[in-house]
């Protein structure tokens, strides 16, 4: 981590991550994730696949999917586009790390602070989600990654374990509204 004098502010404005607990559900603010977008350069699909496999230790995921290997988790965001995530503590400079690995096969952009991430855990998660978004989280398979709308905001919903472990990534500037929506839906459902 760079040795500078500026203190970071968490998306919800606290000094420590916010955590809300309900019977069978926790909503946890997770700021410890560095994110970089990866977009394949025109016609470089094969080169990118090779470079990505070397860098991440896994193939890039197909549409609607997420893969995780070691420090890295990758999810598909659009045709030829992915997000690469890694622990913030060790990968704060993620875009340079990824760009160095992928070279001119892909465009890489720092996305870490564009997003607030909430980790949603517990068997009641689908009860909350069905009041938030169109996705059928009850029947979503582990490894699914979808962009959808929550509280009028574009968000990604990642499923780590079917029915009980998810992450929601939404626009950081609207973290408070997104958090409020989750808590309100959880109270409504549980």
């Amino acid at each position, binding site marked *: 981590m*760079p*040795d*500078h*004098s*500026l*203190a*970071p*502010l*968490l*998306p919800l*404005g606290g000094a420590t991550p916010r955590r809300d607990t309900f019977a069978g559900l926790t909503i946890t603010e997770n*700021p410890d994730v560095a994110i970089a*977008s990866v*977009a*394949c*350069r*025109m*016609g470089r699909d094969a080169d990118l696949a090779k470079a990505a496999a070397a860098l991440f230790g896994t193939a890039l995921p197909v549409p609607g999917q997420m893969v995780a290997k070691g420090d890295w988790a990758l999810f598909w965001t659009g045709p*030829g*586009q992915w997000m690469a995530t890694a622990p913030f503590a060790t990968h704060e*400079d993620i875009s340079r790390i990824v760009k160095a690995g992928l070279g*001119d096969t*892909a*465009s*890489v*952009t*720092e*996305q*870490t*602070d*564009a*997003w607030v991430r909430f980790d949603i855990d517990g068997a009641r998660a689908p009860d909350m989600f*069905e*009041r*938030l*978004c*169109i*996705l*059928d989280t*009850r*029947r979503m398979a582990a490894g699914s990654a979808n962009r959808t709308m929550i*509280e*009028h*905001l574009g968000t990604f919903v990642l499923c780590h374990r079917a029915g009980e472990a998810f992450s929601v990534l939404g*626009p*950081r*500037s*609207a*973290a*408070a*509204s*997104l958090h*409020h*929506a989750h808590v*309100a*839906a959880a*109270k*409504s459902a549980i």
Partner: protein
Amino acid sequence: MNQMNRINGQPLGGTEATGAPRSGQANRLSGGQIDHAKTLNFRFDGKTFQGHPGDTLASALLANGVRLMGRSFKYHRPRGPLTSGSEEPNALVELRSGARQEPNTRATVAELFDGLEAMSQNRWPSLSFDALAINDRLSTFLTAGFYYKTFMWPKAFWEKLYEPIIRRAAGLGSLSMETDPDLYDKGFLHADLLIVGSGPAGLAAALTAGRAGAQVILAEEDFLFGGRLIAETYRLGSGSGADWAAAAIAELAAMPNVRLMPRTTVIGAFDHGITGAVERVSDHLAVPAAGKPRQILWRIYAKRTLLCAGAIERPIPFENNDRPGILLAGAIRAYANRWAATPGKTVAIFTNNDDGLRTATDLIDKGVSVAAVIDTRPEGKTLAGTTHLKGATVIDSAGRLGLTGITVRLGTGETRQIACTALGVSGGWNPNVHLTCHQRGRPVWDAKIAAFVPGADLPPSMSVAGAATGDLTTSGALASGAAGAVAALDALGITARAAELPEAEDAPVNVTPFWYVKHGKGRAWIDQQNDVTVKDVKLAHQEGYRSVEHLKRYTTLGMATDQGKTSNMAGLAVMAELTSKSIPATGTTIFRPPYTPVPIATFAGRSAGKDFRPVRQTPSHKWAAEQGAVFVEVGMWKRAQWFPRQGETHWRQSVDREVLATRNSVGICDVTTLGKIDVQGTDAAEFLNRVYANPFAKLAVGKVRYGLMLREDGMAMDDGTTARLAEDHFVTTTTTANAVGVYRHMEFCRQCLWPDLDVQIISTTEAWAQFSVAGPNARKLLQKIVDPGHDISNEAFPYMGCGEITVCGGLRARLFRISFSGELAYEIAVPTRYGDGLIRAMVEAGKQYDSVVYGTEALGVMRIEKGHAAGNELNGTTTARNLGMAGMVSKKKDAIGSTLSEREGLNRDDVLALVGFRPVDRSRPLVAGSHFINVGAEATAANDQGYMTSVAFSPNLGHSVGLGFLKSGGARKGETLRAVNPLNNEEVEVEVVSAHFIDPEGDRLRA
């Protein structure tokens, strides 16, 4: 009439309840689906009553001997419930009080809870004495079309006189005018099979599908599952229908793949098989539990929908058929069997079918006296144990506030008076085809039951089972429900076996069509909710409103909360007779969602009040809030508008101070809200060259350029700066308002117009906290922030330079030397999480320069002083030429909008041009939106010379300044014009000047 009051030797007068103790539930029977052991207290019109769990408000009132529950819409006629369900036209009440007061609630579906408060509506001063009942005496005048004919002119009277009077006289419940304190929610459900209705068909379908393992949703509008099974006495196998229903629900409740949704009305069938449903989560509670919604609007994605919505009984209109105590026969049977309540101790039945006879036998079994059964059919079986009058009709009724007796015309033509306090009427049953019509499907006529049944053109993925198909027997409903589920699942590739079904009644209803009683001169009510009579339909016909759609609009037949569920058929039948057409040839009106009324609050869901839409906060929000900043909404963003300091009492003091301090020393502003788009790829430069009107191909690395983006029609779309960070890497900015639209447009260009360009884009608006640092001391301030290794002197980092730097001891950052204020200025960006830290560090560093942090208001003042166009000028109707940027539109390359910019009409000599204005009398303010008129000319549209777009008070110049578009503006500097504001009837003389009020040569920028 006097004679009638003495029929059968019984004294009859007023409501039956007057003779019975109110707390005694005089009309309460035994049994049913209510918990007699528990008592609930409730109030109706201020009086306290008792009921039981399982009651509706209507059933509890009937049990207490109360039949009169409301006054009718137009004539203020006394009315009681007609039905026992959601199709109720009459018994509308105001439920609850204070902010939770809810008008037009159907007493027949309002689940009783302890402490429930209800008030009758549309009466004054009281329900039993209503002053506006005078309308009833004036009925000769108040026929259909009365309002249209009477209140035609003068036009001015309509708004001031007629409408307020009509609104006061008509209408039903009133609003509390307070904010609804409850929460409403929305949600999304997914299933293989949605079953609508839980009568015999719905339950058989749910068992079949549930046992096959399919994902099933069973939605029931009632709070109890079972449909007619819990309102009837016939056997299912060895037990009662209610027992079988309870066992079925118990089995379904244990299946994890089945979701049982009571109190849930499917309100609409929408495109591509999507359905909408309203779940009344807390309507049966006095106050919702903390955090729980009152209602939820569900959007259901079911692969198949099976409609098992049953059938709705229809009345037979006759003279004075609307008195409290006259109900549908099936409703009386339901009140007796399910709710252990009867609207009267002595009941008569008027029917044209065998189902009506069933009501008589059930009532007799319950110990209720049946005075007579009046049967329109001359033939058929004779009911034992009562007076069964065949080929007879009811031709009139009596009783001012409640039924006391009826007049019957026998087959022989003679009349007979019969005393009764309730009359059950059955004109047959209409399959509930409502939802089958929501995608413009038309029902078809089934002569066998004399009713419409679902047509072939059902909404996608919907099928129908049970009584809704026209098969009105229980055995038929069970079988078609099971078969319907098998077929629906088969279409999804799921194999199901029809549930084994109990033996059930399969008697046909033997209906003989009989639409209305022709004898009698008085009014026979077709639509009780809208006070539409047989005569009204005849009048509509006479005046040429013969199509059913015209009939509906002319008479209001079938409108309002019940949408004519019990009345449409009779109206159609009368019109069919008048036009000598068949009923199917006469047609039906179109059923539209919602099936039953839905509060607006439910459609709003959580998006109400401060949660109307999400709030986006800037990285410096926390700091700004600590400073007591005044915030303004800019789209979803909340931006600091100005930062009041102690002693400042007017916003202008704060804004003037912020402007002056910036121009004299240095000011800081959070500009994160501007859209930022990362553009990369080997063709990134070429891409930008095509989406911006001005050239970008040769922009050097480490440089920034202003860009003007046009729409294809040549109008300005957006503007901003683009920085080239590397040969194949740009960061482009958009205005705050257009960030989303510009991104969408770029994706369109990239994917649809030039699909093989090597360019990738992604939004980075949120990723970077970006601050403008402007003013003569901007560099000095930043030199205390930027790490020493980076030279930001004017030579090393000139105007329109950019670069990646580090700040505060090693934090990666970006620096752009760009200016919106016209001062020496930079924009500095750090990862968003450090934005709060950076503004604190900069404020600290700026102290020695008396720096300020300025808000959007000062930002606006400075850009107007500088003559920069913004949203007011890029308003969708202005071209590059209007903006004075015609020279930027390159003719040497293809760019969006450049070709159509050349259109002749956009390039006439006198087109609007952006110029500046100042008041001739410097003390006068300017008003944005004012139009320019030549001195001496009349202030008319024909003389319009242009309009003022932006105004501000310039603290630097000491007077107001304005920007605006003026015909041939560039050539008119020095001219005096009038800025006319017709809205306030004000005008001010203005002088045309350059738009650049401050530093027109741009020396400050480059300092």
